[in-house]
Structures are given as C-alpha cells and as structure tokens.
C-alpha cells in the first residue's frame, strides 16, 4: 500500500540481521517499529540492520532507532547499520547519528568486526 515497507530477520553468526526493504516515513514507521520491538522482545540485543534495500528514511525512522538504543546498550548489545545508499547515509551523517550508531559499508564487514570480539568490546564508542 503506497510506498511500502518490508522487514525480514535472519540470525547470522553473532547478530540478528534485519533486511529493510522500501520507505520509512510517517506512514510506514509503525511497521518498522513493530519489527524492531519483536526482535527485542525475544531478548535479541545484537542487531545489524542491512539497509541495502532501504530507499528512504525520514525523522520518524530515526526516532525509532533513538527510542531503542538505550535498551540495547543496557543489555550489552549493539545496533549496527550497513549498506546505506547515499540518501539514507546523508541524513544519518548530517544529524550526527553516525556517532551514535556504527555504520558499515557492507554487511560482511559488520559481521567480521564481531568475530572473536568479546561482548564488552562491542559497545559503541
């Protein structure tokens, strides 16, 4: 319906990887929030969001990330992002969200960075 949103979750190595497909705006943000909350409700706090097919995100989508980062960090988890297109990276960068969330060029780099790394070492900087 309209510019829609689809989210698929898969366990990969140490992380729950969320694949986001479509547009996150005021119309679709509830679907995005529900997907993240359902991951958290299963006590998964090690999350990588692959943005390869995320075409667009507005401030309501950033609000969702802001709203869960504390719970994730309190549980020694992490929220990584990867594979952003230029439009999506630009808004993250402009707002300084790249200091709050680790952003990787590619999913494999994010997963590699987890290998052989203890829980305590994967906190945000």
């Amino acid at each position, binding site marked *: *319906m*309209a*510019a829609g949103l689809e989210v698929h979750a898969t366990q990969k190595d140490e992380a729950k990887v969320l694949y986001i497909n479509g*547009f996150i*705006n*005021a*119309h679709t943000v509830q679907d995005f929030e529900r997907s993240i909350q359902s991951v958290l409700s299963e006590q998964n706090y090690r999350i990588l969001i692959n943005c390869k097919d995320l075409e667009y995100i*507005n*401030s*309501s989508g*950033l*609000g*969702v990330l*802001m*709203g869960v*980062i*504390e719970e994730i960090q309190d549980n020694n988890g992490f929220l990584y992002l990867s594979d952003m297109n*230029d*439009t999506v990276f*630009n*808004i993250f960068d*402009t*707002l*300084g*969200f790249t*200091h*709050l969330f680790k952003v990787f060029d590619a999913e494999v780099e994010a997963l590699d960075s987890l290998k052989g790394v203890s829980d305590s070492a994967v906190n945000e900087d």
Partner: protein
Amino acid sequence: MKELPTGAIQVTFPSDTVYVHMAITVASNAATIAGFDKAIASKVALATDEAVTNVIKHAYDGRNDKLITLKAEITPESLTVKVVHTGKALTNEDVKLPNMEKYLKAKKPGGLGLYIMKQFMDEVDFLVGKEHCCQMTKYRLVDKSGG
C-alpha cells in the same frame, strides 16, 4: 548551456500520511527540473517530508480529512517549496531547535523535523494568514559572470 526553466507546480492532497511519498516526489521532481543535482533533490524531498508530516501531525492534529497544498516555484535564483494548510499555525517564534550534541546524549526520539528542514534548506519561514504556510527556499548557484 540550456536555459534554466522557471515555473510553478501546485499539488493539493488530503492530510493523510499515505500521500506524503507522492508529495515528496513532486518536490524532488521540481528540484531536478530547477537544475539541482540528485543529492540536493533528496534534501529538498526530505525537508518537504518533514514539513508535510508536521502539518498532518501537529497543524491538523492527525486528522486525515483536511487538505494540504504543496507549491513548488522555480525562479532563476531559487526553488521555493510552500506547504499551505488551514490548521493550527506555527510562527517563526515558536520554532525551537534542538542542540544536537545534547539531543544525541539524551537519546529521546522525536523533535528532529524542524532541525532537518533548517539544515537541508537555505531558508525556512512560517507564515501566518488566512491560510498558513511553511515556506522553504533552496538557492541555485548562480554564476554572476555568465549570461
């Protein structure tokens, strides 16, 4: 060099979030027609998204049966996007922008829309009248030396 086009587009739609994506594609098309590159066109689109979403959420309190008019005006100097509505007015004095450093430490969601609009456009003004209007301008890089 091709002449830069001037002209105006005006689109009216219900105050429902289902139409926001359509509205921002009009804004982004207007930016492209005005000669801005893809990166700037996406900034104009995002600022328009935030302005239209604010009108639906705040000016119209989430009601989806009101009307919003988006105007895009292309002049030799600039592109101006106006979001016109008849809901609650916001004035320039009302606008409080977050301190981003504190904001990122506080980790509270929301409150980024106006900041994005100010950040991504060159001028943002709120006009109060019979209809209210959020007016945002992006200037072209005009080379004064050439024709």
